[in-house]
């Protein structure tokens, strides 16, 4: 647990010292989403109908943008190798890094989501559900993304590869996330979608760190 907290604290401190990266992700999220009205027209009903999907897709892309950050700097300056040969469990280290990534991307995105909800006329009764789906779903994006980020360490054109690996695997999160908000908009209970979103997250909580740690071992071998 101490290891976990130590790595988490270190990664958070590093992320906060380069808080420009953090702001970029949130800015990208809001900017990309505000392009949609230009594309589909300003009709408020249409935008309200599309809001859950737009918020979720842009959140997915924004997370994608920041994935390289999880391991790349540590890989390049050799600290990842030190973490790998240290006696502590690499899975735990990876989980700490993923947590730090979520705290610096998923959480800010969730807090920025109400702005988009206002811009897109999302019915106010659906807003809590939207925030809840982002709160449950964005950790899964970090968990799956970490696998992609670890697999592409040392690859040629690694940055371009990550989306190709990660996006198809994120389809369930997108479906359950938007499904819950859609249900809330039309007045249906959203529990089923939320539960499934949580289930996917729970599975990835196990698979993600194990697979990412395996990939890190290969990378620094």
């Amino acid at each position, binding site marked *: 647990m101490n290891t976990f907290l130590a790595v988490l604290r270190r990664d958070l401190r590093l992320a906060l010292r380069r808080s420009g990266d953090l702001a970029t992700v949130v800015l990208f999220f809001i900017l990309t989403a505000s392009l949609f009205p230009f594309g589909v027209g300003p009709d408020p009903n249409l935008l309200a109908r599309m809001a859950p999907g737009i918020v979720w897709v842009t959140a997915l892309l924004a997370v994608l943008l920041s994935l390289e950050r999880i391991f790349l700097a540590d890989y390049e300056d050799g600290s990842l190798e030190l973490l790998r040969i240290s006696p502590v469990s690499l899975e735990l280290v990876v989980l700490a890094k993923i947590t730090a990534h979520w705290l610096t991307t998923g959480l800010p995105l969730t807090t920025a989501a109400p702005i988009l909800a206002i811009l897109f006329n999302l019915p106010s009764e659906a807003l809590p559900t939207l925030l809840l789906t982002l709160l449950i779903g964005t950790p899964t994006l970090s968990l799956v993304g970490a696998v992609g980020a670890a697999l592409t360490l040392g690859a040629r054109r690694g940055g371009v590869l990550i989306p190709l690996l990660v996006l198809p695997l994120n389809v369930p999160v997108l479906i*359950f996330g938007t499904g819950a908000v859609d249900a809330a908009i039309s007045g249906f209970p959203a529990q089923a979608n939320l539960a499934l979103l949580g289930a996917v997250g729970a599975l990835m909580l196990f698979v993600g760190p194990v697979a990412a740690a395996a990939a890190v071992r*290969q990378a620094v071998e």
Partner: protein
Amino acid sequence: MSETTSTAPQAIAPKRSFHYFANPARFVRVADAVYPWCFYAALICLGVGFYTALFVAPADYQQGETVRIMYVHVPAAWMAMFIYANMALASASLLIWRHPLAGAFAKAAAPIGAAFTFLALFTGAFWGKPMWGAWWVWDARLTSVLILFFIYLGHIALVDAFDNPDRGQKAAAVLCLVGAVNLPIIKFSVDWWNTLHQPASITKLGTPSIHSSMLWPLLIMAIGYMLFFACLAIIRTKSELLAAKQRSLSLRALHAGGGD
């Protein structure tokens, strides 16, 4: 075999298990022996399959002649999943037992699987146009096959992304296994998403069971595809192994030259 007096030869005698064939040299020997049989059997199956599918099997009472697309389309979709399952098994044995053959096989099989998946999507579009009136609809099955295609493409890109080919194979193996865990969830979620968003706008093939006059050509085609895959996989795996050998030989030559 029953002789147990001398223990030394027993100890080095390879066990006839799954691992017995993981030796690349032994694989090449077996594959060379199997290949001609596979090749001619594939030729016969595909020939008979195409003939019966196009000329012998009856046209559908509802879909008419377009139902014949099924004989190309359905086995291709089966192969798309079958090959991915094979790759997942190979990836697991690469990561667990470090069989180099498994890595070569997974790398060799991925483009073939992607090609079958593309064939399924492509023929599906041509079947969808007369049946549903659109080249593409976001039907649950189409969508999950499309995502499978993307996962294949990611695998192919990752294998080739490293200067060290071993690293590429191992990274792709991890991806393949993560994908294997995810595929059922994707399939399930897409099914669910589809029923949520556009309920019953698409009528699937109405008949719950298929008549034997249509089933036989379909099965023959499926066996033909399978044998064809075996042929391609043997050729491609062998060339992977040869390329690896050539790399290590030229490295050795380089080291020998530098050392003197």
